[in-house]
């Protein structure tokens, strides 16, 4: 306290918080590791919610003509399942990995903008809660002007889930517009996704600057781990695609709230414009979901094959190529929407070219394992599972590039099978591989291998049991997004298999949770280098010290840590240096004992306050016709602006660094 008074300009309001443990330390933290952990746990909660939604969907589809849930509830469930898994699970869990690992992998003490990093997390959390808060404001209204149309949903169908958004995650217009989806449910999705987009945009600027500017000495761009490269590609994809969806969502919001006519065909508006803007964002978004998992797998395969990644530059450039091409293929989602034949041919061709960089990656992963000394640990199993399942999902994906074939597949379960093979068999397997692999960095312990392997095999079997039958169901013509299918089409048996598979997956997730909870307390201590790893995040003690690196690392090559432990003999085989064990012991010792005081960015109250303003504005817009709504907009704007002003006025970090030194001496 005395030191605060000694500073001339700072007033008490702008004093930065000091708690280092307990509740307030988490609220005000700007530590990238803690933010990463919060991202991870929050995302996992949403994973459970999205998973329960999936189970409800699967129960409804287990047999022909089931009446487990109503059609309206089914619509709500498949919509929120998608929104949750995409925006509230896979994206944030990737953000969790990036947050935690990126600075460690490039040898930095934190990200470029620690407070903005905290801001991203809080906006994400509030945005997620905002979407689900729709359930509290349920107001079921029948679509205007189309009562009595066959297939039209009766408002009495709507029950407790009626307030949840139900237009599909793609929010196609005019179905999700004011005429066909009256009521407020969709507004929560529209504005909620907008809020989540703000979080991701801030994070993307932050991570791009971090990667370009915060690298340790010697960490040239082509010495960065593939995980970092994939992160960079993903952040550019987000940077350039989020503004597009922001505009598209604003347009829907204006249509729904303020009576603009963008997507109203009766007034000359254009629903196809929505599809263009949505998929201009939506297709890069697909790579946003899968590339981090590719990065994770590219880290894990070399470690457990005891070989360097085969063709590192090829993997890096293929990743960048996927990102670049990702902006040129959006219209393959619209082959059935009536775009011109020239456009169909061009986008079909462009889509096929995506297979080239993707194929390069797959061959490089196989080449990495080829002839290696493979250790089948849990992370490795998940990584291999990723490669195998992703190949299946990738191949079924190429079939969509063939326009006539795509017309047949559009809106069938073939599509559902395809994207679950890439997003679950791909992204989710990659995420679990990463969780097992980097668990020691969080806790200083390794996860139980036996339970881990059980988890893998149960999940692998459950996954294939669930989604492989959807291929045949799709080819038989079973239609997506329909709550019932009639008897006599012989669709029942495979659907039942699929439903059983979904519960097997659920069981595997329970096994994982048990393993996680037990290993946190009772797992075997990991030491510094449990996997005989290659990259510099393993040159510091586990769990990671608050300051990351006790002394700034210097990087001399790709896979720097490996080359410090291993050399090669005349035949090119890896030979462990005799002094490797001593090196590890010394790194562990040094990493725990910084020789000089380390300046860390100070915690701050302002990120969470600034973030809190956004959902308030969101509620205000939804209820803008009432006085309360108008007041909420004003209040939310004031909260955010005031917090940002306070943010700007907070004592600068340099000053605060000196301050923490003084307090450290005073103690």
């Amino acid at each position, binding site marked *: 306290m005395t030191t605060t008074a000694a500073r001339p300009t700072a007033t008490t309001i702008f004093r930065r918080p000091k708690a280092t443990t307990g509740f307030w330390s988490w609220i005000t933290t700007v530590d990238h590791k803690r933010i990463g952990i919060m991202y991870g746990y929050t995302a996992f909660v949403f994973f459970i919610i999205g998973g329960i939604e999936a189970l409800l969907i699967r129960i409804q589809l287990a047999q022909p003509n089931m009446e487990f849930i109503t059609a309206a509830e089914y619509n709500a469930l498949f919509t929120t399942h998608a929104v949750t898994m995409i925006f509230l699970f896979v994206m944030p869990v990737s953000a969790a990995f990036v947050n935690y690992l990126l600075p460690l992998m490039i040898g930095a003490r934190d990200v470029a903008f620690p407070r903005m990093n905290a801001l991203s997390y809080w906006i994400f959390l509030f945005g997620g809660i905002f979407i689900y808060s729709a359930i509290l404001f349920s107001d079921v209204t029948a679509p205007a002007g189309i009562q009595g149309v066959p297939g039209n949903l009766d408002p009495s169908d709507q029950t407790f889930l009626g307030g949840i958004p139900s237009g599909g995650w793609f929010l196609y217009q005019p179905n999700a517009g004011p005429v066909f989806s009256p009521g407020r449910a969709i507004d929560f999705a529209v504005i909620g996704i907008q809020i989540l987009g703000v979080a991701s945009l801030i994070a993307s600027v932050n991570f791009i600057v971090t990667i*370009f500017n915060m690298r340790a000495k010697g960490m040239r761009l082509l010495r960065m781990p593939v995980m970092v490269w994939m992160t960079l590609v993903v952040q550019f994809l987000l*940077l*350039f695609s989020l503004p597009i969806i922001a505009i598209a969502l604003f347009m829907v919001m204006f249509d729904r709230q303020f009576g603009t006519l963008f997507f109203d065909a009766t007034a000359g508006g*254009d629903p*196809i414009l929505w599809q*263009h803007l949505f998929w*201009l964002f939506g297709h890069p978004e697909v790579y946003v979901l899968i590339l981090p998992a590719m990065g994770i797998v590219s880290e894990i395969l070399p470690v457990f094959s005891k070989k360097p990644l085969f063709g590192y530059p090829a993997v890096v450039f293929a990743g960048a190529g996927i990102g670049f091409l990702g*902006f*040129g293929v959006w219209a393959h989602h619209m082959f059935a929407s009536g775009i011109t034949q020239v*456009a169909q041919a061009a986008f079909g061709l462009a889509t096929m070219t995506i297979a080239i960089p993707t194929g390069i990656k797959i061959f490089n992963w196989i080449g990495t394992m080829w002839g290696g000394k493979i250790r089948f640990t849990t992370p490795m199993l998940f990584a291999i599972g990723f490669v195998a399942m992703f190949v299946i999902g990738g191949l079924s994906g190429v079939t969509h590039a063939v326009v006539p074939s795509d017309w047949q597949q559009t809106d069938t379960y073939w599509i559902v099978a395809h994207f679950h093979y890439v997003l679950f068999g791909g992204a989710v397997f990659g995420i679990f591989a990463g969780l097992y692999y980097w668990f020691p960095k969080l806790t200083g312990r390794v996860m139980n291998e036996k339970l881990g392997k059980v988890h893998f095999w149960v999940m692998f079997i459950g996954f294939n049991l669930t989604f492989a039958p959807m291929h045949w169901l799709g080819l038989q013509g079973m239609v997506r997004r329909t709550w019932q299918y009639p008897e006599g089409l012989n669709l029942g048996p495979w659907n039942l298999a699929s439903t059983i598979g979904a519960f097997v997956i659920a069981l595997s997730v329970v096994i994982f949770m048990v393993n996680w909870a037990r290993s946190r307390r009772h797992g075997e201590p990991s030491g510094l280098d449990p996997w005989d790893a290659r990259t510099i995040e393993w040159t510091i003690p586990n769990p990671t010290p608050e300051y990351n690196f006790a002394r700034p690392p210097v990087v001399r090559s790709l896979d720097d840590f490996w080359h410090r432990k291993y050399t090669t003999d005349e035949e090119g085989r890896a030979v462990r240096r005799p002094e490797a064990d001593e090196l590890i012991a010394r790194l562990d010792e040094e990493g725990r004992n910084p020789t000089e005081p380390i300046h860390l960015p100070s915690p701050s109250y302002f990120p969470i306050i600034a973030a809190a303003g956004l959902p308030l504005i969101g509620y205000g817009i939804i209820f803008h016709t009432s006085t309360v709504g108008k007041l909420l907009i004003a209040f939310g704007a004031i909260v955010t602006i005031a917090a940002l002003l306070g943010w700007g006025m907070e004592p600068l970090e340099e000053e605060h660094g000196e301050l923490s030194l003084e307090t450290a001496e005073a103690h």
Partner: protein
Amino acid sequence: MASDTSHAAHPTPLLYVKIALLLAVLTGIEVALFYLEETVGALAVPLLIILAFLKFVIVIGYYMHLRYEKPLLSRFFSAGFVLAILVYAVVLGTFGVLAIRAAT
């Protein structure tokens, strides 16, 4: 800090004022072209686009100092610009909007 050395090369206020005058003149020509579109004919639209692009580049280069910065910044910036032009041209192209413009 490297950014300090780059500041040394910045132009003088006089140059800034000259540039502002140039921008004003270019805007004047644009408005004139708008009123003379009948006389100038098909050239008017390309000329207007060229003039706007000229103003655009001048403001970025001098007022935003991009000329004096490291090339990395120009690369980032032009990446966003070029990507936006490309994807939106394709979108408008699929609606036939650009084709109509060219025809008239």
